């Protein structure tokens, strides 16, 4: 990031804080609701973006995140409802995410299927399987994950409710953002991962097993999407419904691109996208403006198109050099 971009970032952040406090002073409950909704929506996007990021940093495009969310949400919900344990449900969701990550790796890395087609297979399969096995009579008897107050931190007005009085998987996501950041940029694994995404041939010559690492990374990344599915079913909504991921797996990709394939960047972008979603919900609830809900509903998607178009124009946002390419050991 250049100094100028950093300056812009700080000014923007400061503006955001001032604005939120002004709104909070004017209308406390509404502002809190919108900002809490922002964090809620951002969690899923951040998990999906991290999943996509680890894949792309290693050179594998994952457009199957949508399907990974959906099938993991289904697994998490079904197991939680069968065992009565949200924890076991979450584990099942992560497990399903890992399986789907492995399947994507098997197709895209092992069988050398075109990566975009491989992701599409996941999406279509997830939609079909969840619809086929969907059992309307199931429910979560014990309810979904509830908020945990982080002691005195939760007492801070606005910030406390928005960030420190959240359900467990949201906290876990925030921790994972830090973990993934350190892993990607401060560990040997991260260096190797970025190497096989930029120049697999060179990585190979210094003894990195490109295919094996890609397999591993795409599988692990699937676990993150699996956590996202668990979050969706067990924390955000509290039930499963057909096609409930509603395009957020694709939005996560835009969030990832917008956040320059870094965890913190992605979280900032996720908060921005989450904000548009939360605003949309609030508008719908209160009829604040005389805008049809469908137009507000378009907002995140239109913003994504603009972001992706701009990211193509702004040269500094560069894809990993070997992204989307099959690696053949030569």
């Amino acid at each position, binding site marked *: 990031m250049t100094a100028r971009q950093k300056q812009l970032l700080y000014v923007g952040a400061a503006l955001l804080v001032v604005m939120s406090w002004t709104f909070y002073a004017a209308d406390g409950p509404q502002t809190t609701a919108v900002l809490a909704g922002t964090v809620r929506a951002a969690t899923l996007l951040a998990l999906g973006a991290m999943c996509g990021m680890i894949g792309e940093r290693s050179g594998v495009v994952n457009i199957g995140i949508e399907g990974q969310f959906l099938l993991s949400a289904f697994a998490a919900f079904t197991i939680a409802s069968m065992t009565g344990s949200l924890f076991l449900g979450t584990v099942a969701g992560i497990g399903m995410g890992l399986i789907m990550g492995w399947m994507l790796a098997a197709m895209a890395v092992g069988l050398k299927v*075109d990566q975009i087609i491989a992701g599409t297979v996941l999406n279509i399969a997830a939609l079909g399987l969840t619809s086929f096995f969907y059992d309307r009579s199931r429910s979560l008897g014990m309810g979904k994950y509830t908020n945990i107050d982080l002691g005195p931190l939760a007492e801070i007005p606005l910030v406390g409710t928005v960030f420190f009085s959240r359900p467990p998987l949201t906290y876990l996501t925030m921790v994972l953002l830090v973990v993934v950041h350190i892993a990607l940029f401060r560990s040997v694994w991260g260096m190797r991962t970025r190497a096989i995404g930029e120049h697999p041939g060179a990585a190979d010559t210094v003894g990195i097993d490109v295919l094996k690492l890609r397999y591993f990374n795409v599988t692990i990344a699937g676990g993150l999407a699996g956590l996202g599915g668990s979050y969706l079913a067990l924390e955000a909504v509290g039930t499963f419904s057909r096609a409930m991921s509603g395009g957020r797996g694709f939005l996560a990709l835009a969030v990832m691109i917008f956040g320059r394939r870094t965890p913190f960047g992605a979280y900032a972008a996720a908060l921005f996208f989450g904000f548009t979603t939360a605003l949309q919900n609030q508008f719908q609830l209160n009829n604040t403006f005389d805008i049809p809900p469908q137009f507000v509903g378009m907002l995140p998607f239109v913003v994504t198109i603009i972001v992706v178009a701009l990211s193509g124009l702004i040269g500094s946002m560069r894809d990993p050099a070997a992204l989307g390419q099959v690696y053949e050991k030569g």
Partner: protein
Amino acid sequence: MSRSLLRTVAIPLAAVVFGLLIGAVLILSQNASPTAAYSALVVGGLGDADSFLRTLQKATPLIFGGLAVAFAFKAGMFNIGGQGQLLVGAVFAAGVGFGIDGLPIFVHLPAALVAGALAGAVWGGIAGALKATTGAHEVIVTIMLNFVAGNLTDWLSANPWKDNSGNNIVARTPLVEDSATIPTMGAVPVGFILAIVVAVGCWFVLERTTYGFEVRSVGHNRNAAQYSGIKVGWIMASTMAVAGMLAGLGGAVESLGVDGRFEAGVNVGLGFEGITIALLARANPLGVIPAALLVGLMEAGASRMQFKAGVAPELIDVIQALILFFVAAPIIIRWVLRMRADNSEQLQLGAGWGKS
């Protein structure tokens, strides 16, 4: 059957067989009989004139949807936005279909079809133009446009174009005028004939015209095409517009020939099936026809399968995903059938999200 044709169809055929076999395992897991389910499926799709008509009706938008994906494939692009293009095509065709009164059928019907085709072309063209000018990846843009189209068509059918007859509360347009309704000739809907004609037209354009040659050149090697003087940006933008037009036509035929109106939520998923069809057809416009007929048959028979064998109709979606998987990963089939490798089999789209 010549040897080369046999080789070409071997993988898709085997993929269908494998898909059905795994589907049978799923049916068994639901404590139902696969033979009963599959025979109900076939009878439901081919048993009598009515079910045959239904199969053709189901296959019609699938042909258009498959062509929309296949045509873009030829230029090396993945049009995953068939859904959105189909929706805008369906709603605008219905809009012209019910909105104008008193025209003869030979003016009104073509006008409604053209409205749908144009709407789809605009929708696909946006993605193509963005790809050509900014490098924005068409996969992301078309997916996003799907959601925008969903919202836009919801709004149109729930507000300005809403059917206010009786005490209707559903988001749908009024029925289209008789003069904009696609007729049926015996057991064959005219929309299906149109789809066949368009498929042959696509084949002709791609294989026998200069434009088609340029499209395929861009698909084979963008840099080489650029170097040889082909306007790559224009080819990409126009190819996506044509692809969108094809999907839009499919939506128009749905509105004017099958549903008689546009209703929000009715056509969901049709656009995505186009991907399966196109891959099953190996992106060949003529291959799209049998592929669409096969899937159309399964869809036409699905409700009978549920009724007779107690198998959820969503099984069809699972089988489609399986077929897609086997077509996309022919190496598995080759391994089972002990076939030799063939370079033409693998479809590659690749590349990142930005400039390429």
